[in-house]
């Protein structure tokens, strides 16, 4: 077993809060130091918001767990200052193959279009993501950013009040009490915070078990996602093979419902299954084995006064489509700039209601898409199976059936159609950049667009005039002036103009489009800024 799991990454140390006569009040406390909690802490610290992370553990998560990280996650990680490390270590992929029975039925390319700084996906073990986020957090600390992390600080009780939360925290040296203006609970699908606050988490249970095995092997399979329906080595079930860094391969085998989990997990039972899949001659070692079942569910509201939920604590999906960790990072991306404005008094507290509505929209989309994938992979009835197999048979011969094959619809950023922060679309432009969309990247000579949009409101003008700075009720908007001539590949025109000769976009700090028009009109954009900050 890799020693990365053994070394404490944020060992327990006594903090002055434990000796304070009255509970110390922090601006924000984050519970949980997984990818979502660490990202939230970094995002806030970068904006100079004081934040404290409490975690009951002191190490990275055990086993590879989440391994597929999307382009949007990499774009967010760039904004958080650690995208390059994820990219350097991760395995890039954008191709996949689908097999049915003993034959390949088709292959696909997730990113047929070009001109993005980041690939469609990388595969990277969750423990690396956590390590890199932790390094970034330490680097921010070294620069004097107001962020702390406390290992082996287990929250035992949560009290919510009108304008703060109060936490009882257990440590190796006994309990203490601490307070925060705002709490962000990123403590996973079994969230103790959610349980302590007595909030329901109901949804649909899928009656199926999946065996995950991470194996170390020298193999010459390409770095593609291979998915099997009903293969000879796992009859009546599905299988997945996917490459991770360090010659680790993720293998996912569907087992069905009525199984003895403890028995199936034993190496003497796992190894023969894998040999049947990989071939007798392939040498491999088991790194990590786990059996999981899953549910699709979400909280009715992601916010209870001053307690806000993000990631798996708020919503849980089936793993097909990599919509777990990726959606958690989109939660953080959506939340932190809003919290910053509210804390600074530049936006009303009600701006946070839009976190709830926008991310519930995202969660519902993720639940719908991953449930459909699961229904395709695990047909619920004889007729579902007949239809599923018909789609697969047709897909081998006819292109039309391939979009119906569903081995997982891979995570994409949610477009917040209908959000109260959007202004009505006033540009006859491409649908992919309509208000609510996450901005797609564009090459700009040797550079890219997204890093120029990071962390603040931006007025993006394309062959249009506008003031360099616009101030509206405490919010400063800076202009980024571009011309279609800045991009020889014409991706800027294709993604942001369409047939329009010019455009002005108001872009939120999380790189989502708030408003767009063909030309600058002061009144319209002042309204749009007010709307985007929850003031109209």
């Amino acid at each position, binding site marked *: 077993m890799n020693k990365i799991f053994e070394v404490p990454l944020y060992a327990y140390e006594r903090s002055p809060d434990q000796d304070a006569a009255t509970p110390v009040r922090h601006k924000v406390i984050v519970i949980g130091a997984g990818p979502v909690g660490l990202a939230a802490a970094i995002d806030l610290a970068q904006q100079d918001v004081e934040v404290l992370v409490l975690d009951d553990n002191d190490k990275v998560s055990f086993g590879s767990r989440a391994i597929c990280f999307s382009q949007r996650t990499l774009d967010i990680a760039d904004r958080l200052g650690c995208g390059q490390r994820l990219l350097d270590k991760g395995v890039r992929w954008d191709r996949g193959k689908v097999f049915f029975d003993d034959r390949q039925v088709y292959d696909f390319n997730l990113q047929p279009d070009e001109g993005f700084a980041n690939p469609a996906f990388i595969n990277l073990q969750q423990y690396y993501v956590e390590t890199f986020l932790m390094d970034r957090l330490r680097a921010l600390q070294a620069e004097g950013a107001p962020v702390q992390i406390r290992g082996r600080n287990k929250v035992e009780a949560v009290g919510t009040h009108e304008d703060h939360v109060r936490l009882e925290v257990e440590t190796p040296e006994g309990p203490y009490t601490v307070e925060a203006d705002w709490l962000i609970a990123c403590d996973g699908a079994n969230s103790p915070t959610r349980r302590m606050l007595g909030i329901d988490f109901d949804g649909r249970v899928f009656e199926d078990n999946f065996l995950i095995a991470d194996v170390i092997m020298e193999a010459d399979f390409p770095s593609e996602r291979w998915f099997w329906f009903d293969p000879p080595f796992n009859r009546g079930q599905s299988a997945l093979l996917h490459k991770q860094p360090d010659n680790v391969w993720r293998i996912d085998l569907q087992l069905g419902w009525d199984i003895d989990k403890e028995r199936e997990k034993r190496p003497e039972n796992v190894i023969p299954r894998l040999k049947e899949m990989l071939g007798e001659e392939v040498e491999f070692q088991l790194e990590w084995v786990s059996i999981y079942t899953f549910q699709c569910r979400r909280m009715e509201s992601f916010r209870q006064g001053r307690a806000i939920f993000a990631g798996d604590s708020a919503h849980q999906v089936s793993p097909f489509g990599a919509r777990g960790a990726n959606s958690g990072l989109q939660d953080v991306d959506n939340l932190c700039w809003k919290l910053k404005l509210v804390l600074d008094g530049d936006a009303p507290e009600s701006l946070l209601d839009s976190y709830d509505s926008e991310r519930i929209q995202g969660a519902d989309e993720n639940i719908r898409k991953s449930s459909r994938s699961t229904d395709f992979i695990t047909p619920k009835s004889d*007729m579902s199976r007949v239809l599923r197999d018909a789609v697969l*048979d047709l897909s081998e011969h006819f292109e039309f059936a391939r979009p119906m094959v569903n081995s997982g619809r891979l995570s994409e950023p949610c477009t917040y159609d209908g959000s109260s922060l959007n202004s009505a679309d006033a540009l006859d432009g491409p649908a992919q950049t309509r208000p609510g969309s996450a901005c797609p990247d564009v090459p700009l000579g040797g550079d890219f667009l997204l890093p120029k949009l990071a962390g603040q409101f931006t007025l993006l003008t394309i062959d249009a005039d506008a003031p360099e700075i616009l101030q509206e009720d405490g919010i400063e908007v800076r202009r980024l002036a571009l011309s279609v001539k800045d991009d020889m590949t014409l991706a800027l025109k294709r993604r942001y103009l369409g047939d329009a000769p010019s455009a002005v976009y108001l872009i939120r700090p999380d790189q989502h489009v708030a408003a767009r028009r063909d030309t600058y009109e002061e009144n319209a954009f002042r309204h749009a800024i007010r709307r985007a900050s929850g003031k109209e």
Partner: protein
Amino acid sequence: MADLILTPNIDNADDFYADLLAAHDGIDKVDSDALNARLVLVLANHIGDNAVLVQAINAARLKMT
């Protein structure tokens, strides 16, 4: 003569597939088979063109047209 469309032609194939599964949800095999048969006939009538329908029958038999 019109040709049978064998490239993707449904805007959101996942929505269609989910609607199709939902129509079969909770009914037994005999009723499901009958539903499929009726659906084939309804769609055939919508298409109308005999030449296209022959191509569709051949496609369903996994014969390349």
